[in-house]
């Protein structure tokens, strides 16, 4: 299995004034292997969505890429995404990668019937396919999402939020892309629909050996679905590793708190949350960005920024004190 996407020292800032930037993503490097499900978790304002915007080259002002690049590995070639022009990008979108953006259910064209949306999407990607075959694929896809075929003759406004979301997810997988980006694909949906959509994504990705990149603040979802988990805090990736390993032996103090503060049914113990508030991304704290809220912080944490180091096999942590934390 080879690499499919690689981020090298990516920084993306929102310009909010003269020489004033919100550093939403700051020096992020990571790479994902083909066929894996990578989860990106973190709390609101940690830069998850911005990271996805950079990875899909959906960069519009005030967002600017301040440094680094994103590379796609396509048929043995290495493509620098951020150097491509609009025409070249159009060739990648839908075919090589798809995106389920946040609040995706509102991204369906309201004046087109669902069937027309499907056939347009498919026709743009797969020119050679005949109509009967397209129809078959669409029906199969809808069926596995529990949607009746009648929805093809309906307008998006006639469907419930959960159904619209299922249609967006169906569209993102139906072209069999190599990479599927999902930004909070199930937020706001009920539990059963959420489970259904996530299981569908998981199956489709595994069946086509596609890579799934799942952004979600919900740690429960990450535990259920992902193979590899990255924890983001204040524009940085602070920990990344195999999901089971992260839950069994979290190394970063933030990750430890994030996981241990979650209420769990059947667990009667009382839990404590994280103290303090998330830092400003305009003037992030010097050194480790987590140090103002960290129980283990020492001098060095205030002065120097911790690098992401492999502490255990495939398990990387950006913390000077992580060796001293109990897993």
């Amino acid at each position, binding site marked *: 299995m080879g690499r499919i996407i690689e981020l090298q020292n990516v920084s993306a800032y929102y310009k909010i004034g003269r020489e004033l930037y919100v550093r939403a993503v700051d020096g992020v490097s990571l790479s994902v292997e083909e066929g894996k499900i990578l989860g990106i978790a973190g709390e609101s304002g940690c830069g998850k969505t911005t990271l996805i915007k950079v990875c899909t080259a959906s960069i519009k002002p005030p967002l600017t890429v301040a440094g680094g690049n994103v590379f796609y590995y396509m048929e043995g070639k290495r493509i620098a995404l951020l150097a491509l022009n609009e025409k070249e990008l159009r060739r990648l979108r839908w075919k090589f990668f798809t995106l389920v953006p946040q609040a995706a259910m509102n991204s369906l064209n309201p004046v087109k019937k669902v069937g027309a949306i499907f056939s347009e999407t498919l026709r743009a990607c797969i020119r050679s396919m005949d109509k009967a075959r397209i129809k078959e694929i669409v029906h199969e896809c809808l069926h596995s*999402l*529990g949607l009746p075929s009648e929805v093809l003759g309906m307008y998006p406004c006639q469907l419930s939020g959960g159904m619209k979301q299922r249609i967006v997810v169906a569209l993102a997988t139906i072209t069999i892309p190599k990479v599927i980006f999902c930004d909070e694909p199930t937020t706001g949906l009920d*539990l059963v629909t959420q489970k*259904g959509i996530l299981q569908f994504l998981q199956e489709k990705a595994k069946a086509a050996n596609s890579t799934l990149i799942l952004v979600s603040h919900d740690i429960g979802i990450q535990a259920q679905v992902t193979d590899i988990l990255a924890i983001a805090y204040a524009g940085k990736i602070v920990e990344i590793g195999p999901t089971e390993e992260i839950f069994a032996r979290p190394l970063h103090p933030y990750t430890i708190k994030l*996981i241990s503060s*979650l*209420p*769990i049914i059947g667990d009667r113990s*009382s839990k404590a*949350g994280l103290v303090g508030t998330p830092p400003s991304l305009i003037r992030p704290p010097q050194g480790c960005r987590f140090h103002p809220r960290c129980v283990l912080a020492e001098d060095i944490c205030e002065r120097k920024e911790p690098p992401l180091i492999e502490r255990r096999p495939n398990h990387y942590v950006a913390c000077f004190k992580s060796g001293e934390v109990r897993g």
Partner: protein
Amino acid sequence: MIGLGKEKTLLDLRGVTRVFRTGLYLGAAFRAVDDVSFCIREKTCEIVAGESGSGKSTLAKMALGILRPSAGEVLYKGRNIFRLRGREKKEFKREVQPVFQDPYETFSPFRKVTDYLEATVLNFGIAKSKKEAIRLIDDRLRRMGMDPQEVHGKFPHEFSGGQLQRLSIARALMANPRLLVADEPVSMVDASVRVDILALFVELMADFNMSVIYITHDLSTAYYLGVQTNAEIVIMYRGECVEKGSVEEVLINPLHPYSKMLLDALPEPNPQRKWTSRARLPSLTLKEFRKTGCKFAERCQYAARTCFEKRPPSFYVDNRAVRCWIMEEKGGTP
């Protein structure tokens, strides 16, 4: 205070129903809340859990006296809240306070947050002067674990979501309430501070002799708050209360097929305990609001013919009320 009877019941919802009529579906009426009853006593916590569209917010509005039920009644200390007038009405409005989901919407972006706290204190006549009001505000803020110095003179955007939600609870506390009706108070707050806000409710209940109605879609926070307050939980589905009982019993050992399905779909934050079954996705929804029989029958894997024909009453089994025909076979009494 409104004449306090001997009984310690604060709020009593009796067969509360709310019908919304819409022109959209051929003038059809649908029951957002359908015959829901529960009562909340002093210093207790009641949890209402359900998914979007289950009618839990409509229920909250009726408990707060904002929305009139189409049938049934809401009693506060034994009096119908929609018949209260003048002074009594004002007392009810003071004693039953809301906490809303989105703290950014609770506060106007153009006003300082302390202005709200002050207005609440002065409007309800809790403090006579501005000076007294500020002293009271500072006291409440300290109780919320906030430094008054860091709150005064600031606008809502200068706070994080968690802080703002604390302020929104502080605002409710200014009125010296007997009951807080909190509709999804932690769903907009970061996961790592959720437990602290829930713990705050537990503390405040003890400190202020207050009761809490906690309305949520999140069963794990329901459990966390519930076990600490010995709460009763009401599971709502399409406007009905399908299961009611103690939090510990209902969430550990659910009886209604819907409660079971919900708990089964909950993503547990533990990769060692992944989902074992496949989700049964619901398809079309509106029909279910109107049809006869059990509202859950179409999605229920145990559904028999009776379920489609006759609406089940609530059966009482092991200290619980379960609206399901299966319970009749298990010896439940209606």
